[in-house]
């Protein structure tokens, strides 16, 4: 009965440490595929807008008709807070069996290649013949196939065509045309487009494109090395200031005053046409389109310099499918992913709600059915002429976006010169990348 008396502090610490060890680390128990499909319920999570949600729910209905023994439990919502939710689930070993994942999660959740299920073990189920080696490489971590790219997407301009027509202004084709158009927009109290310093960090992305085109350098390499020096970052911030000064975009202050922390697509200025365009990934432009009831968005050209150089624009896997490393049903999850990626009926239901498919076979199928259309497709076609650079997954990390946004905010609010902001940003990014590359 001694156990009821106070145990030694060392014993307590030992118990705590061992229990923390159990909770702090991911389980190493991997369920191996058994070569057959059992009756089970799989959890499938994704984020997106209403168009994606309804298409996916219809696809699940179709799946359950084909495989009534494998039920799918959907978990879906908007992008805000989704990363935090999945991070928590993965850390707690309660992640859904099948997940739609973002590109940078391969760095944050599976830097050792073990954060997601090794899909190379499941190639009996998943047909990868429609994917090029390059596309497949985007889903690899430490040479381990962790995820499969669903679609590639570029960040381009989408304009409110009604406003442009009303003002008699054509979409700019070069940076100079863009800058000089500011005067005309200013006289009408309209902005050609807008950028933001929220989770998308669009302001910094556009500045990076400009500097990449001007210098031929890549901001960040695929393995997380900084390609820009301090001077390049300063030039990027100078370019941002030029955009504000020439009435191309609103200042951070103007944006904040309007609606605080709201996303650009929900802001009154975008909805009523005062902001006549956005700079956004083709795969997510649907949420902007759906809010413009009385106007139409059109994809605009990717800007070049005066000699026609269109380099520097960026593309990335807009989203990928992965299987949880803790799944008890790897065979069934793989079969479901194969359905999502390769089934033509499913592809017809999805259309372009997840962007333009990266699977060549499905792309050809949808093209033959004239299902590939819309502004996301138009933008994607225009981007293919621009020789785009694939975005490094490190560029998408939330901490990196915080550094970009801090620098943009400080130059916009004039609390720092572009030199000071560039020095701070360069120092912060260099230190952060060094740290994550060490671990």
């Amino acid at each position, binding site marked *: 009965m001694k156990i009821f008396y106070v145990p030694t502090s060392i014993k307590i610490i030992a118990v705590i440490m061992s229990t*923390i060890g159990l909770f702090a680390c991911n389980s190493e128990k991997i369920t191996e595929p058994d070569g057959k499909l059992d009756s089970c319920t799989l959890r499938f999570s994704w984020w997106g807008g209403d168009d994606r949600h309804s298409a996916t729910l219809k696809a699940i209905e179709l799946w359950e008709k084909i495989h009534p023994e494998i039920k799918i439990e959907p978990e879906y919502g908007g992008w805000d807070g989704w990363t935090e939710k999945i991070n928590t689930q993965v850390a707690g070993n309660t992640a859904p069996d099948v997940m739609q994942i973002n590109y940078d999660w391969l760095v944050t959740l599976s830097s050792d290649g073990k954060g997601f299920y090794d899909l190379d073990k499941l190639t009996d189920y998943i047909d990868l013949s429609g994917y090029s080696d390059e596309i497949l490489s985007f889903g690899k971590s430490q040479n381990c196939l962790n995820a499969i790219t669903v679609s590639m997407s570029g960040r381009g301009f989408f304009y409110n065509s009604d406003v442009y027509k009303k003002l008699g202004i054509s979409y700019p084709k070069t940076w100079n045309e863009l800058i000089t158009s500011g005067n005309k927009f200013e006289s009408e109290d309209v902005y050609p487009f807008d950028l933001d310093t929220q989770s998308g960090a669009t302001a910094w992305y556009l500045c990076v494109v400009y500097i990449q085109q001007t210098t031929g350098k890549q901001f960040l390499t695929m393995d997380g090395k900084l390609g820009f020096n301090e001077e390049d970052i300063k030039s990027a911030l100078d370019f941002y200031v030029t955009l504000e000064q020439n009435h191309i975009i609103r200042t951070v202050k103007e944006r904040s005053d309007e609606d605080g922390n709201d996303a650009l697509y929900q802001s009154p200025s975008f909805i009523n046409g005062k902001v006549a365009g956005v700079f956004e990934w083709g795969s997510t432009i649907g949420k902007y389109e759906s809010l413009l009831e009385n106007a139409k968005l059109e994809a605009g050209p990717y800007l070049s310099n005066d000699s026609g150089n269109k380099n520097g624009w960026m593309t990335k896997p807009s989203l990928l499918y992965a299987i949880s490393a803790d799944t008890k049903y790897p065979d069934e999850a793989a079969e479901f992913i194969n359905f999502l990626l390769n089934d033509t009926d499913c592809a017809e239901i999805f259309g372009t709600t997840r962007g333009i498919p990266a699977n060549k076979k499905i792309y050809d199928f949808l093209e033959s059915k004239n299902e590939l259309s819309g502004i996301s497709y138009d933008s994607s076609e225009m981007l293919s002429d621009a020789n785009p650079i694939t975005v490094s997954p490190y560029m998408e990390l939330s901490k990196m976006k915080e550094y970009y946004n801090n620098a943009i905010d400080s130059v916009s609010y004039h609390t720092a010169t572009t030199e000071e902001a560039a020095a701070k940003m360069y120092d912060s990014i260099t230190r952060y990348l060094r740290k994550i590359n060490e*671990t």
Partner: protein
Amino acid sequence: MKPKNRKYNNPVGQSRFTGLLLISPFIVGFMLFSFFPLSASFFLGMNDCGISRSEYVGMKNYIDLLTDNDDFLQAIIVTLKYTIILVPLKLIVSLGVAVLLNREVHWIGTYRTILYIPSILGSNLAVAVMWRYLFTSDGLVNQFLAILGLSPVGWYSGSISAMSIIVLLRLWEFGSTMIIFLAAIQKIPLELYDAASVDGCGRIRKFFNITLPQLKGVIFFNAVIQTISALQEFNAPFMITGGGPLKSTYTTAMYIYDAAFSEWNVGVANAASWILFAMSALIISLIFVVRRKTEERSK
């Protein structure tokens, strides 16, 4: 005396296990939901801990946070500033309203209920969202200013105005503090006021010489509760300003959230939580010291 020889004379039996059995729900709950998470948090704070990695680094996270992390230090300053502004204001407003509501007038119960409603809504996120829309460029507040012939205010772009929005929201939720004050005021013996009236004291003198000294304990209690709550502020700045502009409303709790769930830097987040705890403990201790000093002086 050896424990096995002890006699337990309790109403539910002689066995010494009975008592333990009866308090076991609390013990188990405390161990699972308080002791274990707190201990785990402390030890995780000494690890460089991500989703797929965990390495013991000793006090490095704590030292880095306090010496080499501008964002965290700024978050602490913002949190302290917010607490220093909000707590005294809230105590003054709650006490003032409690004194007003202590009068014998018609419909007093209704007034008390109406003024308490914002506190019931409390930290409801819907209230924070509503608050955000009140202060947008064409929100209700700016429309009201326009009616008065005043120019609209850019509430979200100034560090002072953005902080004011959050302070105002929390100030609006003064009901709980006010109810505690009201209950305490009603317990003050009326004889004291009668005696003061006989001595010719006016209302203001009665308030400062009778009401306030009698409420010392309750003021202290409310100050402690409100300080703890302000130091942990998260919902309002997260929902209303997102920490902006230029991180002027970015609180320590927001830093902890970002470190833990956005960057999955669990070690740093836990270390930051313990620093916040230590800071809270220090401030509360200071309030205790001030109280003791004032009590000693009044003796």
